[in-house]
């Protein structure tokens, strides 16, 4: 069928087809917007609040503790929970500034790509049984590739800013994140090897099954810690988990890997020329991605939404599978693990000094990649044993 035939035969039906596509897009947009409104924004705002509050505690100061609620007689400081909202509103009111001489289009869409990239991670994040946007058969592959989208946004931002510091920051980002995807991918392969599937739901359900460590069956429910992938091929996957976590820190540009935006060297790196809500989008995107990658780490290595709390909900309180108790138990389980990893990121940031670019690279290629390889081989051997 050539183009002419295609057009003459199908042109009459085109409007319907287009309206169908538009309808489908709109239908897809509603849940996407719901996810943004109900999950990503609160997670981002809470993440910012947690960071500021915890850094305050770590540094022996108060942190934000004033902005609360004041509607008529209802007055409360809410422990400063309103601070992030107030800051967001302030950012919305700021001028949308594009530096003269910069690439305007690239400059404007770069934050959207970064934010969109971390948003898309939430699509496959399994918050609990049946509490998941999508469960594609390429699960982890999707996570790794969508996570890499951020690099493009940052490179665009750095290039379009017409600022040398921004450009240096963006180049650092490309070098750093591009390198750390290698050990991250290898580390993420270990749970895949144990499961034999890329699908996140299967990775979770394997961790809830009876634990088998080096071919030895351990007759306890897998949900009680030992089934988790972090204990598979003991002790190699503990190392794998640490490698994965370090790579997450590097990919998220979190200290001690915050070279692309380190304030003492590059002013603010690729963020230097950004202000207002476009800067805010980078910021929200960072915290959303932190939460998402913590969630992926919890899913791959710590059993995801299966674990002691979920076990208690099902076996202690007799929640029916797929019922509300099951879902709530799973969601609590997922949240505490993810929050733990999230808080650890904050703790690391406020404790350690920053590394230098060559040290970051050396750590990646000299230590993390070989170590991840060894762990992967050990995991493969363990998977062969059963």
């Amino acid at each position: 069928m050539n183009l002419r035939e295609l057009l003459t035969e199908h042109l009459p039906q085109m409007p319907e087809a287009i309206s169908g596509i538009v309808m489908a897009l709109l239908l897809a947009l509603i849940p996407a917007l719901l996810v943004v409104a109900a999950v990503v924004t609160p997670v981002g705002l809470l993440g910012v609040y947690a960071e500021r509050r915890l850094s305050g505690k770590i540094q022996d100061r108060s942190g934000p503790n004033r902005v609360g609620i004041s509607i008529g007689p209802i007055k409360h400081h809410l422990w400063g929970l309103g601070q992030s909202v107030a800051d967001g509103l302030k950012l919305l009111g700021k001028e949308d500034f594009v530096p003269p001489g910069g690439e305007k289009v690239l400059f404007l869409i770069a934050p959207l790509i970064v934010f969109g990239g971390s948003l898309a991670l939430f699509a496959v994040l399994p918050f609990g049984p049946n509490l998941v946007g999508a469960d594609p058969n390429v699960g982890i592959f999707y996570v790794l590739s969508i996570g890499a989208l951020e690099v493009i946004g940052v490179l665009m931002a750095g290039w379009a800013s017409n600022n040398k510091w921004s450009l240096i920051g963006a180049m650092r980002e490309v070098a750093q994140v591009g390198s750390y995807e290698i050990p991250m991918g290898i580390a993420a392969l270990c749970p895949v090897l144990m499961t034999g599937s890329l699908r996140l739901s299967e990775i979770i359900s394997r961790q809830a099954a009876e634990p088998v460590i080096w071919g030895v069956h351990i007759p306890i429910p897998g949900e009680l810690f030992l089934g988790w992938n972090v204990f598979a091929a003991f002790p190699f996957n503990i190392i794998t988990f640490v490698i994965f976590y370090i790579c997450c820190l590097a990919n998220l540009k979190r200290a001690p890997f915050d070279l692309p935006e380190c304030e003492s060297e590059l002013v603010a790196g690729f963020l230097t020329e950004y202000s207002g809500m476009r800067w805010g989008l980078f910021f929200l995107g960072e915290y959303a991605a932190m939460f998402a990658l913590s969630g992926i780490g919890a899913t791959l290595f710590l059993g995801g939404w299966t674990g002691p709390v979920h076990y208690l909900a099902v076996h202690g309180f007799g929640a029916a599978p797929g019922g509300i108790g099951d879902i709530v138990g799973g969601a609590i389980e997922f949240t505490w693990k993810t929050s733990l990893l999230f808080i650890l990121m904050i703790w690391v940031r406020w404790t350690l000094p920053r590394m230098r670019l060559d040290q970051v690279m050396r750590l990646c290629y000299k230590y993390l990649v070989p170590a991840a390889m060894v762990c992967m081989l050990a995991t493969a051997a363990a998977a062969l044993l059963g």
Partner: protein
Amino acid sequence: MVPERDVQSEELVVNMGPQHPATHGVLRVTCKTDGEVILDCEPMVGNLHRCKEKIAENVQYWQFMPYTDRLDYLASMNNEECYARAAEKLLGIKLPERMEYIRLIMTEAGRLSSHLMSVGTYGLDVGAITPFLYCFREREEANHLFEKISGGRMLYHFMRIGGCARDLDDAWIQRLLEFLDRVESKMDEYNTLLTWNKMFQERTMHVGVLTREAALAHGVTGPALRASGVDWDVRRDDPYGIYHKFKWSVPVADGKYGTVGDCWNRHWMRALEMKESISLVRQAIDKMPKAGPDDFQPVESPHKPYLAKGVPRTMRAPKGAEVYVRSENPRGELGFYLVSDGGTSPYRCKIRAPAFCNIAVLPHITRGYLISDLVAIIGSIDIVLGEVDR
């Protein structure tokens, strides 16, 4: 034969400063970089020039005292002390012993406060934000102390020619001792977070090595000089005040850790000097004598300064008299050169600022290192732009 490098990357000239978070003020460094590697750099000073030396020629001797605060604004006490000593030498004023003790206590407490700031901001330069805030927490108490005695938090105007603003009372000394205990107990915390932290050492050890010869050739002084292995401290080698009465030592880098002259050693010297300052203040408080009956002029009201007997109201130095007085400031050797023409203000006042001489060495120790290292090196030299530009 090794082929010529056929991939040529373009050299980039980046301007670090004058508005940059890591240049400690308004220093501007133009760096020629190849990627991240610094090929050459040049510190451009003068953005904070305020004609201090010219001002000195146009005000009376005692009126220049508050201006000295604004030289090295992190160690105002030390600047004041040096200027006061220079003017006293020019005018021929002798100090009572108690005043010497007050001077020593105040300058060493000032050094402690200044080094707290240096150590903290150095952590900030290499990306460790929390130690910086810990240091500021302690420095805040130092600020309170100085505020209580002098009325200013940073710019004290405490010293006077032939005296100081007021006598130290027991309650204040007690509070100072508590502050010293507190800082001493927190020193381990800073060292754990910075000095002995592996990542901090990776960033600072063997970086920006200033050799002994280069340090001497450039006139580098202070902790930066001692970190290069030169055992020189004005307090001991050109003694002034009453330093000879106490037991203390001058820390010098010995190459036990890192390379002699690297950033880590410059940081370490400051950390060690803090301990020496604490010990000096304690010893001075222990031995401080009561004021003799003929030592001081009666203080008529709280607004009047605490001056030695015989300090004239109108200060006039003999014509042609000239003095050069130097002291060991937290950043190095501060010197005042005063020439008199017989009037009430100096004919010429030249200030030898340690940070100005120390920053000159920057291009020689940054070539070949990375941009990140440049920040670490600037931080380790520890400049204060108020003093560089004067």
